[in-house]
């Protein structure tokens, strides 16, 4: 009995001291927020996905330029989780980092519901509107002219294709000639797919990865998508949406797709096991392809110009006005999105600059990708970037797009009739997104 008793007491003491220690540790941690580090200002950044500032050495560089600044950041890989937390914190107006990143699919929602909680970045020191592509600048602008975020990168699209498979199917494999196949438009891309399907010896290999990828590219290359300029939802009556839906479901029904979902494990496996010959690829996806397709497929991939310039993805850096170090945070955000830094990020990590000035830098315009058989990625993506239309964005663009993509998968994966799938998609959007 006695020993048992002693042991319990000792373990209680241990537990209590552990809790005390933990409390102390967190207390110290919180201190670092302020000026605990010998008068240094600590800036907290909320990032997501792959925003490789740390990897590109930019934080280190900034800290050595500004010895009184210390940079800390968190970067959850899933944007959905990140945005959920950001929304909760915006609603409570507390717990926000000094700089918060916002994805392009969300920027209009943040601008329209929370603009008052952010500082005007157009007035931040060192920010020149002319450095950015005009449409990128406009996307973060509120009705009263306030600009809440500075553009980081954009995602001009091109077509990544397997040149060895094209050759096997009797199609041209040189990137200029491949681009000529679909010079007329996205119809040409699907036509090439039909030829590929007819002549490729292995039925296990599809022409494109997903039908929703095609839809996504088509809709991104049109000015009007889901909203009109007055903020009205118009996707049901938008001919371009109908056209994109029709063509991508046609491709699905013709069996040109590998029936996968982008960013699923099976899609990644599709790259490494050579299951499909083309994928519509924004600049940032080239890193994903070379990573997933692996050493074994090096030099087999290539990049061709797309039928039309279009954008997919890209982000903004915002500075919430409730922060403790608004001025320092604005300076850092301006520096991170300045043309020089954007050019560095492209050269090192493949994030395409949203700054027209950075696009002209030799390390951008002259860039090539060794993995893609030395394709002139700088030139191809720059050309795509300059032909990106000024698109009208709306607050629920991301959610509408997700639902339409899912509707296409109803045809592709479940074998539903396209008309039925469209009806149920519209119904879901009315209920879940706009309702």
């Amino acid at each position, binding site marked *: 009995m006695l020993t048992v008793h002693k042991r319990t007491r000792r373990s209680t003491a241990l537990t209590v001291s552990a809790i005390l220690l933990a409390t102390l540790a967190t207390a110290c941690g919180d201190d670092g927020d302020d000026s605990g580090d010998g008068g240094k200002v600590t800036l907290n950044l909320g990032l997501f996905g792959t925003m490789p500032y740390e990897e590109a050495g930019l934080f280190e560089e900034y800290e050595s330029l500004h010895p009184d600044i210390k940079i800390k950041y968190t970067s959850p890989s899933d944007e*959905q989780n990140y945005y*959920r937390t950001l*929304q*909760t914190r*915006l*609603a*409570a107006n507390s717990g926000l980092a000094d700089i918060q990143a916002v994805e392009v699919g969300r920027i209009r*929602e943040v601008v329209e*519901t*929370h603009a008052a909680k952010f500082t005007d970045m157009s007035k931040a020191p060192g920010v020149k509107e002319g450095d950015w592509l005009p449409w990128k600048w406009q996307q973060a602008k509120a009705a009263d002219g306030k600009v809440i975020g500075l553009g980081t990168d954009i995602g001009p699209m091109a077509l990544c294709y397997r040149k060895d498979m094209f050759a096997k199917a009797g199609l041209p494999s040189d990137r200029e000639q491949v681009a000529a196949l679909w010079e007329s438009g996205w119809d040409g891309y699907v036509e090439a797919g039909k030829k590929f399907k007819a002549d490729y010896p292995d039925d296990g290999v599809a022409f494109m990865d997903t039908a929703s990828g095609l839809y996504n590219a088509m809709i991104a290359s049109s000015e009007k998508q889901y909203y009109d300029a007055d903020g009205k939802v118009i996707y049901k009556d938008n001919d371009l949406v109908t056209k994109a839906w029709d063509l991508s479901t046609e491709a699905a029904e013709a069996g040109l797709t590998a*029936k996968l*979902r*982008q*960013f*699923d*494990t*099976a899609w990644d*496996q*599709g790259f490494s*096991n050579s*299951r499909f010959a083309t994928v519509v690829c924004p600049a940032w996806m080239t890193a994903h392809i070379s990573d997933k397709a692996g050493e074994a497929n090096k030099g087999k991939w290539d990049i061709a110009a797309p039928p039309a310039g279009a954008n997919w993805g890209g982000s903004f850096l915002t500075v919430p006005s409730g922060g403790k170090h608004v001025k320092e945070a604005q300076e850092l955000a301006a520096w991170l999105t300045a043309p020089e830094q954007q050019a560095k990020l492209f050269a090192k990590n493949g994030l395409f600059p949203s700054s027209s000035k950075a696009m002209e830098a030799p390390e951008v315009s002259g860039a090539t990708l060794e993995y893609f058989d030395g394709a002139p990625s700088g030139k191809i993506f720059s050309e795509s970037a300059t032909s990106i239309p000024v698109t009208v964005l709306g607050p629920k663009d991301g*959610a509408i797009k997700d639902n339409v993509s*899912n509707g296409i*998968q*109803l045809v592709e*994966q*479940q074998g*539903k009739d396209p008309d039925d799938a469209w009806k149920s998609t519209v119904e879901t959007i009315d*209920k*879940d*997104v706009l309702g």
Partner: protein
Amino acid sequence: MATSTLTDTPAPPPAPESHAPRRQRSLRYWLDFRAAPYAYVAPFFAVFAAFGLYPLIYTGWISLHEVELGTQDQRTWVGLDNYTTMLGDDRFWKALTNTFTIGVISTVPQLLMALGLAHLLNYKLRASAFWRVAILTPYATSVAAGTLVFALVFGRDFGMINWFLDVFGVSPIDWEAGRWTSQIAIATIVTWRWTGYNALIYLAAMQAVPNELYEASAIDGASRWQQFRKVTVPSLRPTILFTIVVSTIGATQLFGEPLLFGGTAGARGGTDGQYQTLGVLLYQQGWGLFHLGRAAAIAWAMFLILVAIAAVHALITRLLRRA
């Protein structure tokens, strides 16, 4: 036994000291015998009120409003609108059906297999401790890790099961796309994880069955199978009922497996919602689409379903006891 001490009458209070004033004595007596018991149970009720009752009522309150995650400070009173929308939505009924069917195809084989396993483990075995630990290992694996591995095993293009079927000339099955195939796959994950756990519960109950019953039945000439049916199973009846209730509650709340099995379509429960359970529907509405009011209504619906299950359980227990 812990229960016997609870029923013991408390020791008589120490004889009051004769020179203490009477009023003080009665206060002390009151503190000791009237107030102290309440003070002892107070922590539980305080914690339950803060983390059980309050969230429950607050969720109910939220479910009567239109609330979006991003603008939680702007609430609009909508009365029972969220409930009528929910009941008028096909997806709610689909999710309810899916929850039920996945529940049945996971719980029934799971408990039958657990009973069989427990029976086998109840024999004198070499290294019995090893086997007992071995069947519990799936339970010790995290839901996420287990599900992600099973998602690969059930993969369409490169999954092990399709590869195995291919050996027998069966063409590859798109497990995730089909309604029944996906539900079978998810039920497999649940069964894999919980069979060992239930088997151990049955085993513990089996070992409490008096040996005399077996001896008596053996003298009467009962075979092993007859012993199992006529002695073991009847003695286990309360335990079986307990595991059925616990598994049913678990099945009603099924969430992690379908969510992670579906990859990027997990929150929809598949492209066509073919394996969306109530838990996943709640998650999709609240944390995918940010409609907190609607999610709260679904949460309350699930709560009421669980209350109904508990009531049915109580009823059956009473009937069994009477019989």
